[in-house]
C-alpha cells in the first residue's frame, strides 16, 4: 500500500497552515513529522485522516472502496477515552467500533503488551496521563489497521513505556504497516523525517 500526498494545502481559521506539501510513503515505512510548536504537525495528521478540509490530493494505492478515514488508526492529542468507564470497557467498545473482525489482539493481551495488564477493571478517570496515553495506544493493537497516524505517541510516557511503544511501532512496520507520527523527540525507528516550516 502506498500513501501519497501532493500539493496538500490546509487552512485553519483563514490561515494557511500547510502549503503545497507533497510526500509519499510505502509499506513498512515510517514518517516522522517534526517542526516547532504551531508548525502544523497535528493539522497535517488531521488532514490526512480526513477530519479537516484540505486542498490537493491524498491518495491511497491500490484504490479501495473505503475512504482513508476508514483505513487509519488515528491517535490524537485527546485520547478518546471515556473517564467513567473502565479501561476494558473502553477498549472493548473501540474494538467493536473500529471493527475487531480483522484479527486484532484480545483486550487483555493488548494491555499486557503496554504494561497495563493490571488496569483492565480500573475506571479511566483514575489513570495518570501516561497510563491514559498507553490505553489510547492499546487500540492500535485491538483492531488491525494498515496506516497509523500518531500525534506525539511518546509524549507523557516514562522511559520503559517508550521502549514498549517503540517495539509496537517497529512490529507494525515489520508487518508492512505505515506510520505517520508527529514528534518532537524523534522516534528511534528508522524513520524518514518531514520537517514542517516555522510557525507563522
Amino acid at each position, binding site marked *: 500500500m502506498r500513501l501519497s500526498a501532493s500539493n496538500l494545502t490546509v487552512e485553519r481559521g483563514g490561515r494557511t497552515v500547510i502549503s503545497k506539501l507533497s510526500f509519499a510513503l510505502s509499506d513498512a515505512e515510517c514518517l516522522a513529522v517534526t517542526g516547532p510548536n504551531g508548525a502544523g504537525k497535528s493539522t497535517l495528521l488531521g488532514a490526512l485522516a480526513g477530519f*479537516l478540509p484540505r486542498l490537493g490530493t491524498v491518495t491511497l494505492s491500490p484504490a479501495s472502496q473505503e475512504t482513508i478515514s476508514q483505513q487509519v488508526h*488515528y491517535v490524537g492529542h*485527546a485520547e478518546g477515552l471515556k473517564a467513567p468507564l473502565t479501561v476494558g*470497557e473502553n477498549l472493548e467498545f473501540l474494538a467493536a*467500533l473500529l*471493527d475487531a473482525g480483522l484479527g486484532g489482539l484480545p483486550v487483555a493481551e493488548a494491555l499486557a503488551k503496554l504494561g497495563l495488564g493490571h488496569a483492565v477493571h480500573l475506571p479511566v478517570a483514575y489513570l495518570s496521563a501516561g497510563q491514559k496515553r498507553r490505553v489510547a495506544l492499546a487500540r492500535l493493537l485491538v483492531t488491525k489497521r494498515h496506516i497509523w497516524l500518531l500525534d506525539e505517541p511518546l509524549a507523557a510516557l516514562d522511559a520503559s513505556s517508550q521502549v514498549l511503544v517503540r517495539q509496537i511501532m517497529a512490529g507494525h512496520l515489520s508487518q508492512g504497516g505505515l506510520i505517520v507520527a508527529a514528534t518532537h523527540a524523534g522516534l528511534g525507528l528508522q524513520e524518514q523525517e518531514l520537517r514542517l516550516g516555522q510557525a507563522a
Partner: protein
Amino acid sequence: MTIISASPKNPLAALFLRDIRMGRRIGGGTSLGIVFFLILVTLSAFAIGPDLKILGKIAPAILWISGLLASLLGLDRLFQADHDDGSLDLLLTSRTPLELIVLVKCLAHWMLTGLPLAVAAPFFGLMLNLPISELLSVTLTLLAGTPALTLTGAVGAALTVSVRRGGLLLAVLILPLCVPSLIFGVAAAGASESSAVAFAPPFLILCALTLVAAVVAPVAAAAALRHTSM
C-alpha cells in the same frame, strides 16, 4: 471479566451500550430531568392558580411544554462530550456510517431522558387535575413525540458541537422546529369524547413527524458533524 466478555461485537450495539452505561454511571441525567419536569409543572400550577377547571383544561399543554423543555437538558452534551475527549474523531474513522451512529446515540439519549419523562407524565398530570381518561393519551403522545424532540435536538447539538456554552444557542435553534410536534402532541393529548378533535388524526401526524425526524435528522446531524469536527 464477565462484564467485558458480555460486550457486543456489533459497533452500533457497542455504542448504544456505552452511552447507556455512561449515562447511568455519571448519574443525575435521568433523575435531574424528571425533577426539572416536576418543577416546571409545579411552577405553571402556581402561576395559573387553584382553579381546577382551568388547570385540567390546559394540563396537556403544560405537560407538553414542560416535557419539551426538560428534554432539552443534556442535549447540548450529546456530541460535545465526544468532541471534547476525542471520541468523535474515532467515530469518524469507523466503518459504520455516521448517520447510523447519530441515530443510535439519539436512541440512547432518548432512553435516558425522553422515556422517563413520558413515564412520569401521568403522575404529574394528576397534580394538574388532568382527567383520568386523558392520562393515557398524554403518556402516549409524549412517548411518540419526544423522540422527534431528541432527533431535532441532535441537529442543533451537532451544529453547536464546537461552541462553548452552546446550550442556549441550541435551544434557540431547535425550539421553533419543535412547534409541529407540540401542536399535534397537545391536540392529541387533549382529545376526549367531549372535545371536537378525535385522538387518532393528530396522534398519527405526531407519529409521522417522529418518523420523518428519524430519517432527516441523522443525515443533517452527520453532515454538520463532518464539517465541524476538530
